[in-house]
């Protein structure tokens, strides 16, 4: 007797505990193995690009907060760099250092979320996630001191930052760095050499460098695929040409490397923050610019940063008005998602969730 089997199609998302928001993917399974993948986007589309055309240049900063809501600072930074290039101005050095410092703090916070949820999706019930959130909470408190907001910060402005850091910020930052060393070491001890984590992620869903480059993948996912590529090194912006740091590169191209690269990047971010604290000097934190910005008509600018998830860029076109004529957002999450087929097909249901976690998408950014 032969038993007939047939593939089964399952809708994963838009309501699912681990699709990072409202991502939906139709997956055809053969038993537990994935045969076919069809991603469906658009459940969180809010028309950010169009909204940007309706607001003046400074107001758009608040829209960028809501793109990838786990790394608002870096989104602000990318947009402000684009506007500055559009105007042809340069922020003062103190502003550059403040931006670099807050962006790196935000990178740590975003990587903590990425790592925490990655391990949560591996099935570790809450503990690593809570460890990560304990430290992230401290970073958000620092942001609150800077600008009064924790998530949607809107701290940066074209021409610098909204305001200089208050006096009590610096000792608080020192205390955070001191505690974070210990807390992060605890987390590394729990996770890095964890036997179960290793066998679950080592060798799973490798993305060869050719595939990664051809799909325009960027950020930790690209570096885990063995390509040494970091916009902070390749095209330094703000104060990144003044600080020293290394670029961690994966050698196995798999889920574990994507996790490992993020852990190492946190260490590099800490190095950058320490150098910023040493090098920063008193001075103005914001360029004197008119309240309503009117770049020259016909100018275009492309502002690009290495965000926590990859290359985030704003392409702005001016028609001489008070609002951008066009604002195109190149979001790393969307473009990193294009490798989803290489990532998932042929692997198991359990690996699918982990692989999705390893590329660390954020739906606010994917759908925009």
């Amino acid at each position, binding site marked *: 007797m032969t038993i007939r089997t047939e593939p089964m199609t399952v809708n994963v998302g838009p309501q699912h505990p681990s699709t990072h928001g409202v991502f939906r993917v139709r997956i055809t399974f053969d038993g537990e193995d994935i045969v076919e993948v069809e991603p469906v986007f658009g459940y969180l589309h809010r028309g950010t690009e169009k909204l940007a055309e309706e607001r003046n240049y400074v107001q758009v900063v608040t829209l960028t907060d809501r793109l990838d809501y786990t790394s608002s600072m870096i989104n602000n930074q990318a947009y402000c760099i684009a506007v500055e290039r559009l105007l042809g101005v340069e922020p003062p050095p103190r502003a550059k250092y403040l931006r670099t410092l807050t962006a790196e703090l935000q990178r740590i916070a975003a990587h903590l979320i990425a790592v925490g949820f990655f*391990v949560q999706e591996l*099935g570790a019930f809450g503990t690593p996630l809570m460890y990560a959130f304990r430290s992230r909470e401290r970073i958000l408190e620092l942001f609150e001191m800077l600008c009064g907001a924790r998530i949607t910060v809107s701290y940066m402005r074209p021409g610098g930052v909204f305001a200089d850091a208050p006096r009590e910020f610096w000792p608080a930052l020192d205390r955070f760095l001191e505690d974070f060393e210990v807390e992060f070491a605890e987390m590394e001890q729990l996770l890095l050499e964890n036997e179960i984590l290793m066998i679950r992620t080592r060798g799973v869903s490798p993305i060869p460098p050719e595939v990664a480059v051809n799909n325009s993948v960027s950020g930790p996912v690209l570096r885990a695929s*063995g390509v*040494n590529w970091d916009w902070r090194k*390749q095209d330094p912006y703000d104060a990144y040409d003044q600080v020293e740091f290394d670029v961690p590169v994966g*050698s196995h191209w798999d889920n574990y490397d994507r996790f490992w690269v993020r852990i190492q990047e946190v260490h590099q971010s800490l190095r950058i923050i320490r150098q910023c604290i040493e090098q920063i000097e008193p001075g103005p934190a914001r360029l004197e610019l008119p309240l309503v910005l009117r770049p020259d008509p016909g100018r275009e600018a492309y502002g690009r940063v290495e965000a926590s998830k990859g290359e985030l860029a704003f392409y702005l076109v001016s028609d001489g008005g008070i609002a951008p004529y066009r604002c195109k957002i190149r979001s790393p999450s969307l473009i990193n998602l294009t490798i989803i087929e290489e990532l998932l097909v042929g692997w198991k249901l359990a690996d699918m969730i982990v692989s999705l976690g390893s590329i660390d998408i954020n739906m606010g950014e994917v759908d925009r």
Partner: protein
Amino acid sequence: MSCQLAADNVLYANGLYRLVYDLVGTILPCWLSYVIAGLVMIFVLVNAVLLGAAVITWAERRLLGRFQNRVGPNRWGPFGLFQPLADLLKLLTKEDLTPDGADKPVFALVPILMVAPLVMMTAVIPFAENTSLAALNVGVLYILAVSSITSIAIFMAGWSSNNRYAMFGAARSVAVLISYEVPVVLSLLGVVMVAASMSLGSIVEAQVLPFFLVQPLAFFVFMAGMSAELNRSPFDVAEAESEIIAGYHTEYSGVKFALIQAAEFGGVGVVSAIAATLFLGGWSGPWSEYLGWLWFLIKTGAIVFLFIWFRATYPRLRIDQIMAVSWKFLLPLSLVNLAAVTLEVFLLRGPEGVLTTGDLGIMAVINVVVTVVAIWVFGNLIRDRVKFQARQPSDVVVPGVTTIEVH
């Protein structure tokens, strides 16, 4: 008129049963008092299981909170002790949904089938000296047989829910349960062999030296296997919430969900009680004739704590890895344990076939060594299968941009 319970009745050993039987027997016919005394005992056991489940949900949430730098539920009652009651009230007031296209009778039967085996298992557990409801002489076999009913209930839940996630959970769960039954049964054989009895009462009495010292390997296999059978971390694939929502009970709500949760946490309690009885010496301890129940509770609590600790610590294994752990790791280990114990019992037992305390001590020393060596050997054997070669850093050249040196 007074009824007399025959001394060879399995229920004879239970003092409470005899008390109720004698009391009721003074006014009612014997067959009726037999039934009424039985119902009283069932009432006690059902409440013990459900109350235990409530306490364990509270303990789990509080302890997980401590493990994770959180507080945990602490609002209602001292230390949040009444939290399970609040949860229950909430679930009771919820709508009891049955999905369209569900197989309704099967769907409704599942919660009962989940709880029933647990209550049945408690019938043979001695909570203190002479307190098990039925002093069955095949207690271990009975427990193994009854506990297997759960896997049928889980598959019924997955099949009748008309939900693909539930189906995933059910299929995974059945695969896991069937695989882990084998090493668990083999690990218990060693216990039965040393105690020379399948009755739980006799096994407790045989533990002058607790069996987790005499057979650490069996204890290890039993705990690992039971984690899998209870769908607990690191083997909780059947209800892996990050993958398949809630697994087989995705579609359950209201009272049915409450019962399934009670069965899950009650299961932890009952299995811990069995582990405490078989491996930690059950009610035995100083002044055990008065404080037996206290020793029993402390030992059960220790095992429950272990299960919660696992859950707070380990990530989940993949389904094929779980199968590999069962067949390639736990099964050989339980066979090694069985072989070692068989040889030791054969060589050490006296002319009357009895093992003395000294013999148990010798066995403990040998078996600790056997355990360390066996876990090391088989651990490395299944570990060596997964080795990965580091690839060379890529030499992919991105057009238009110069590459930077590798740090």
